[in-house]
């Protein structure tokens, strides 16, 4: 009884969210769905949303795990505000995620999972599938559990093993909805379950059963068609922000000729950088899983002194622990990149949720006058580029650099146009030559104010560095008052001078107008989409998104000067806006902030910007 679906809906972009219990395999369904979308030629962005607990109690709200995918024929910069399709594998996941579904969205549920016990655990007093609470949606009640068991009957698996493939049933339904093939997914099964033919057979059978079921039922009478995205020609891959960060460092190491050393301690959501770099000993990467955060950065400082591209990766609480050692790197003027994949704080805070609330800590969180370069990536894919640039600046200017990303960028994925390493900007560390008669540990290049990098083992350059204040040029310990003033000024000037080496700040839209929207770091996607929507509506609104925070781009003042109002949006209580007020006073600053562990939605931003435009 196969029916032909005549009803094809053309879509520019579709947001799909897979949600279920944390053991339900939603991350896998989401990943396979997005990889297939990419192979079908669509642009995309993904975001996994999982609980802090490894396995929270079964069927509870706390245990809900989700994976959101935004696919489209246009450039995809966000993971989407609200979803067009919600796949919910149990009552708790439906309850927790219904608010993220668009009115009229297609909601696919496993009706077999809505039993009395599960409903009770999720806090439903009535079965939402049996009252009219979901009448505003296209509800598809699929007997996923039963049909999954049915599909693998011939394989003599027990119910528990059979149920593990339920996520493939949902995925199969999605493939039908989008009209996609199974090739990539089959290939994945083959690799993943290499020596388990039974498991491969089960997953294939369930995937096909899901596809066939979707084809049959009335509720899914229309299918989506998303045409191929128009993207810059080139070779592409899907990449998460954390992997992109790790690869950016590897590229910087290869291009600079300095071996890579990472000293790090596992911490959510930054651990993937450590895991990723640990894989590439073939590229000479030395990865040291230290005993704590402090040892992570201190080992990196030791490695930096000896000539490695030295890195440490962490998240907010870890950055707190590293503060004193960052001061040592500032004082010894050694290159070092500290990556902070920000999460909700303070303290342990919201480990798996995203925030931009470590900006103050990055800028100011140390004792003494302690300037550090601060750079922020703004998409999962450009984590690669900014990790590369952070390394370049650290080595060429002999300074620690803090690279801010966040959990949203780090765990989220995007399509990434693969560059050629030889085409990336050159990196030339100022390495001192053997027996240079003019070598002095703190003699500086007048253009950059950077001192030279004199590597142990080199003849004629023996010298000591350390945390005590050093005499200008000679580097001996000095407590002389005027020398201290001079060294404090020099360290600040060295960092400020980097403004001459970084790109000017760009503005999207007119250079003058009513409102300039300012944002930085991981919020680029929703902010740019919201501004673009208003620009299309003819509003006098422009956007400046900052990646270089300390120092700010050299044209920052002129960027701000062109606008009557400046609204700064950030996922904290107003840290960048205060930094701008301090460094560039006199503008009509407004702010929009959110600290909920959630990204901005385009809708909320459009409303805020409209209000700002209308305000007198």
């Amino acid at each position, binding site marked *: 009884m196969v029916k032909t679906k005549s009803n094809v809906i053309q879509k520019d972009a579709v947001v799909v969210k897979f949600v279920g219990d944390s053991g339900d395999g939603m991350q896998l369904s989401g990943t396979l769905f997005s*990889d297939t979308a*990419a*192979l079908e*030629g669509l642009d995309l962005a993904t975001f996994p949303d999982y609980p802090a607990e490894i396995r929270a109690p079964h069927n509870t709200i706390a245990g809900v795990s989700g994976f959101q995918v935004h696919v489209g024929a246009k450039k995809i910069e966000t993971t989407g505000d609200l979803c067009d399709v919600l796949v919910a594998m149990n009552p708790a996941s439906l309850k927790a995620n219904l608010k993220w579904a668009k009115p009229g969205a297609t909601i696919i549920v496993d009706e077999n999972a809505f039993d009395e016990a599960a409903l009770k655990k999720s806090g439903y007093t009535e079965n939402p599938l049996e009252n009219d609470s979901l009448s505003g949606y296209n509800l598809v009640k699929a007997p996923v559990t039963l049909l999954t068991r049915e599909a693998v009957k011939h394989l003599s698996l027990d119910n528990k093993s059979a149920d593990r493939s339920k996520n493939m049933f949902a995925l199969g339904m999605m493939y039908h909805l989008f009209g996609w093939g199974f090739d*990539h997914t089959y290939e994945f099964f083959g690799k993943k379950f290499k020596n388990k033919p039974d498991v491969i057979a089960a997953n294939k059978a369930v995937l096909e059963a899901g596809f066939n079921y979707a084809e049959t039922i009335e509720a899914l009478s229309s299918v989506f068609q998303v045409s191929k995205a128009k*993207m810059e*020609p*080139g*070779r*592409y*891959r*899907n990449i998460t922000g954390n992997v992109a960060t790790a*690869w950016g460092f590897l*590229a910087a190491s*290869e291009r600079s000729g300095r*071996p890579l*050393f990472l*000293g790090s301690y596992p911490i959510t959501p930054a651990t993937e950088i450590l895991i990723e770099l640990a894989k*590439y*000993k*073939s*590229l*000479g990467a*030395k990865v040291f899983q*230290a*005993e*704590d955060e*402090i*040892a992570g950065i*201190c*080992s*990196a*400082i*030791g*490695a930096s*002194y*000896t*000539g*490695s591209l*030295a890195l440490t990766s962490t998240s907010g609480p870890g950055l707190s622990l590293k503060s*004193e*050692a960052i*001061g*040592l790197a500032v004082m010894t003027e050694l290159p070092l990149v500290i990556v902070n994949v920000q999460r909700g704080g303070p303290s342990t805070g919201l480990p798996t949720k995203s925030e931009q609330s470590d900006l103050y800590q990055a800028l100011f969180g140390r004792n003494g006058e302690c300037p550090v370069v601060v750079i922020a990536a703004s998409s999962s894919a450009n984590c690669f580029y900014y990790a590369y640039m952070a390394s370049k600046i650290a080595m060429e200017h002999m300074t620690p650099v803090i690279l801010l990303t966040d959990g949203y960028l780090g765990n989220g994925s995007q399509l990434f146009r*693969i*560059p050629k*390493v030889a085409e990336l900007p050159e990196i030339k560390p100022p390495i001192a030559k053997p027996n240079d008669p003019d070598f002095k540990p703190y003699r500086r290049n007048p253009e950059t104010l950077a001192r030279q990098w004199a*590597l*142990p*083992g080199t*003849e*004629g350059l*023996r*010298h*000591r*560095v*350390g*945390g*005590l204040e050093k005499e200008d040029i000679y580097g001996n*310990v000095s407590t002389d008052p005027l020398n201290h003033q001079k060294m404090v000024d020099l360290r600040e000037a060295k960092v400020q001078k980097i403004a001459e080496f970084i790109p000017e700040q760009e503005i999207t839209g007119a250079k003058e107008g009513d409102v300039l929207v300012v944002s930085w770091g991981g919020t680029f996607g929703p902010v740019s989409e919201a501004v673009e929507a208003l620009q299309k509506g003819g509003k006098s609104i422009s956007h400046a998104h900052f990646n270089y925070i300390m120092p700010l781009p050299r044209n920052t003042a002129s960027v701000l000067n062109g606008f009557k109002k400046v609204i700064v949006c950030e996922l904290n209580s107003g840290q960048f806006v205060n930094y701008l007020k301090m460094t560039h006073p006199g503008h009509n600053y407004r702010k929009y902030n959110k600290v909920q562990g959630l990204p901005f939605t385009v809708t909320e931003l459009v409303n805020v910007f409209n209000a700002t435009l209308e305000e007198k």
Partner: protein
Amino acid sequence: MNNQPNLTIERSSVELTKEDFVSDQMVKWCPGCGAHAILSSVANVFPKIGYRKENFMFVSGIGCSSRFPYYVNTYGIHGIHGRAAAIASGVKISNPHLSVWVATGDGDSMAIGGNHFIHIIRRNIDVNIMLFNNQIYGLTKGQYSPTTPMGSVTKTSPQGTIEHPFNPGELVLGAQGTFFARVIDAVPRLMTEVMFEAAKHDGTSVVEILQNCVIFADKTHDSVTNKEHRDDRTIVLRNGEPMIFGKDKNKGIRLNGTRLEVVTLGENGVTEEDLLVHDAYQQDPGIHLMLAKMSYPHFPVALGVIRSAMYPTYDDMVEEQIAYAKAKQKIKTVDDLLNSGETWEIK
């Protein structure tokens, strides 16, 4: 047994002297401080070790001992409090061709830096740690440390400390240390000899130096180290030799059941045959631990190399893994990496 210095470190083509390692900086330790003798021993032993002078590197944390890098002409980092072992780990892993030395104190290594101290030892990274144990905080002027004897009156323990002190040797062996030695600052010959052995050892070596702080803990080790009774209250262990000590060389250490005991040669029929023969290279740390724990008045304090066991070093294994990966893995360049796995062309 390993009699060769580390072969991966380049040797000096010219004969070096003590002067090659003297820095031009004024040494600012108190007159009479035990650290002067340690500095002098280092300057004496480095030419004998024979590496190029540019391949030596000192790392320190904070404290009186930690000013050491400024006073010796090598590459050096004066780090932050407690973190010398962590910094030195990064130095050695990053460049295994360096002879890396840490100067640290009892507070720096066992209080604020306790975590790094036990972990560098556990990993057996080839770093030589000189532990200046003066049983007091000197640079902050006289607070008790993790090795201050219980009951000691200090500025922060006016009624006497109520903390059980660490025995550094016990801590090192508990952390699976492969090399532990103990010396006295006032006996430079033994100190030089032991530092040479430490340099030869592949892996983390810890040399505890019973050091006198003339200002805040003067004579803290005196009941053991004073010349008057030193021979009766210490025993210098030498590999392969029976454990004999005493001014008259008539006392010894014997294993009685599972415990050590002090015996007198010639009494109760005890002969040299009955004494323990020191085996520093033994892998089993059991006897080493008992020797490291010996304390006055029941036992003489053990000096010299107590343990020097051969185990693979972390830094060697890193290089082995890299060499293996370079030979076996398909990804040889970052371009290979970027194009690995699932990629596709868009035209």
